[in-house]
């Protein structure tokens, strides 16, 4: 793919993910007893990058989005959380897509991504608090991560379908196909 086109696509994905992530933070809590639980719609864009462009592009979208969010809204410590969650989640989704190409769809991949996002963030929290007890939140977070992950997977499938009908991704290495 043309380098300029690749750069523009990546920039667009980062921008959309950042804005969606910010807007999501303004919404009321999904579950009042579980602050921090959210849909995770920003993952739509990194997952889309993974299936439509490739792993390098997907990791770029995640990393740049995390640094951007930390620079604009967050404190340095929030960068550790978002990077750990984002990169571990992407690693898991990439691995699953590679391993189970025929047997898996984006629904399961996205649900696993949501789980590992929580896991990565809890691992950083455990390090900062010097206590593994924060993993006690994992069951409840997983109960939320599975449905929200499936939702994000469904949205990504729809976007991929719609994008495949356009020629915007023409020339990308994974353009076309489900």
């Amino acid at each position, binding site marked *: 793919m043309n380098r300029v086109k690749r750069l523009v696509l990546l920039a667009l994905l980062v921008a959309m993910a950042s804005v969606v992530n910010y807007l999501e933070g303004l919404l009321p809590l999904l579950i009042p007893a579980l602050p921090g639980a959210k849909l995770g719609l920003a993952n739509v864009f990194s997952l889309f990058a993974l299936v439509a462009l490739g792993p390098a592009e997907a990791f770029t979208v995640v990393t740049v989005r995390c640094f951007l969010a930390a620079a604009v809204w967050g404190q340095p410590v929030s960068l550790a959380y978002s990077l750990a969650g984002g990169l571990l989640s992407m690693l898991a989704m990439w691995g699953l897509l590679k391993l189970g190409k025929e047997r898996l769809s984006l629904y399961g991949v996205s649900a696993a991504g949501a789980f590992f996002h929580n896991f990565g963030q809890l691992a950083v929290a455990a390090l900062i*608090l010097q206590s593994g007890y*924060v993993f006690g939140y*994992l069951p409840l977070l*997983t109960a939320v991560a599975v449905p929200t992950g499936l939702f994000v997977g469904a949205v990504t499938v729809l976007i991929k379908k719609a994008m495949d009908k356009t020629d915007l991704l023409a020339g990308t290495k994974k353009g076309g196909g489900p």
Partner: protein
Amino acid sequence: MKKGDLLIIVLLLAAAALFWWAFSPHAAEGDVYVVIQKDGEQVFREPLDGTDTKWTDAHNRVVVKDGRVWMEWSDCANQICVHSGTIGEAGQQIVCLPNRLIVRLEAVNAALDGITY
């Protein structure tokens, strides 16, 4: 949705169940203690036996009253700990991540004494 997706969902829920089992108090008949941990170190440990008390430092204030425990005040930005509500049963916890503080209700004969990293 394919068969593999269902397998992933089942595995994730199984992992959740495993963590649930590992972190739930296994012998709840024992006495329950209020344990406060700051920066990984225990700074408060009292039985939850109806005695009302408070624990305060420069950043947080924890209230123990009528067998319930809650974060009354915190100087952190997100206030998640303050909005966590009250806890009263072994295994429950309130976490203030920005101030690296955990308030935990511990059963004395809990199978899991602690995990450190």
